[in-house]
C-alpha cells in the first residue's frame, strides 16, 4: 500500500529546493541589512515570502504531484482569509483615525 499511495521522487529535486530556500532566506535577510524602506521593502518581503511558501508547499509537501481534488480542497479555503485581512485593515485604519482624533489631538472628552 505504501508504494501505491506514497510519494517517491528523485533526491536531486529536494537538494535544489533546499538550496533555493537558503538563497531566498538570505535575500530576505539582506532586505533588512541593506535597510530598504517603504514600498520597495514591503514588496520584496512579500515576493520572497511567497516564493519560499510556494516552494515548501509545492515540493516539500508534494502538492505538485497530488491530484487536483486535494490541492483545491486544501489551498482554496485559505483564500477566505484575504477577506478577513481586508476587513481588519479597514477596521484598524478607522480605529487609528478615531484615536488620533480623540486621544492625540485631545479634542474629544
Amino acid at each position: 500500500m505504501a508504494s501505491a499511495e506514497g510519494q517517491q521522487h528523485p533526491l536531486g529535486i529536494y537538494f535544489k529546493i533546499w538550496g533555493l530556500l537558503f538563497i531566498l532566506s538570505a535575500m530576505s535577510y539582506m532586505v533588512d541589512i541593506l535597510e530598504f524602506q517603504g514600498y520597495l521593502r514591503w514588496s520584496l518581503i512579500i515576493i520572497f515570502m511567497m516564493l519560499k511558501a510556494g516552494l515548501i508547499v509545492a515540493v516539500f509537501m508534494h502538492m505538485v504531484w497530488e491530484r487536483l481534488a486535494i490541492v483545491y480542497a486544501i489551498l482554496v479555503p485559505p483564500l477566505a482569509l484575504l477577506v478577513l485581512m481586508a476587513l481588519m485593515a479597514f477596521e484598524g485604519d478607522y480605529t487609528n483615525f478615531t484615536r488620533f482624533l480623540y486621544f492625540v489631538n485631545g479634542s474629544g472628552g
Partner: protein
Amino acid sequence: MTEANVTHGAGPGDRPDGLQGVVADFASDQRAFKNVHWGKAMMWIFLLSDTFIFSTFLVSYMTVRMSTVVEWPIPSDVFALHMFGADIPLILIAIMTFILITSSGTMALAVNFGYRQNRKVTTLLLIITALLGASFVGMQVFEWSKLIHEGVRPWGNPFGAPQFGATFFMITGFHGLHVSVGVLFLFIVARKVWRGDYDVGRRGFFTSRKGTYDIVESMGLYWHFVDLVWVFIFAFFYLW
C-alpha cells in the same frame, strides 16, 4: 482495512485529469482523495485548520499595529545581538530561519528514504531533524529570556507600542509550541522506524491502526508546515 471499493488504478491516465478530474473524484461516491492515504488527508485538513489559527493571530497583529498611535518598536533593533563589538540586526532570527529550513530539508529526505524502507537512514534523518528543531526552540528560549530581561511584557515594553509584547509572545509562543510538539513526535516516529514497526504493520497507539511509512510522510507534512508558518512570521513580524 479493506480498500476493495476504491477504483483508482495503479497507473496515471486511469482517471481524468484537470478540472474534470476534480469533479470525477468528488462525485465518485467513494473517498474523494485518490492516491492519498486517509491519514495524510486528515493531516492536511488539520494543517488547514492550523492555517486559520495562525492567520487570525497574524491578522490581529496587523490590526493592532495599524491602529496604535504609538510608534511600533523597530524589530531590527529590538532583536539585534551584540557580537564581535557591533550590534548585528536580527542575527539570531536569521540563524533560526536557516536551522528550520535545514531541518525541513532533512525531513523531506527522511520521507523519501522511508518509502525506500531504508530504516537506518530514515531514523538518522528523523533524529537530525528533531535535534535541529530542539536547537530552534532553545534559541527561542534565549530570545524570550533576553526580551523579558529587557522589560518586554505582554502589556508593555520600553521600546514603543505596548501591543508589541502581546503579539510577540502570542505568535512566537504558539509557533514554538508547534515546534516542541513536532520534536516530541519526531522522536516517537524515529523510534518506530528504528524498531521496524512500519515494515511489519505493527499497531500503533491512539488509533491502534496498522502503521505504514505513510506516517513518516504525514509527520513530514506537519514539520514542513511549521517551517511554512515561520516563513510568514519572519516576513511579517521580524522584517516588516
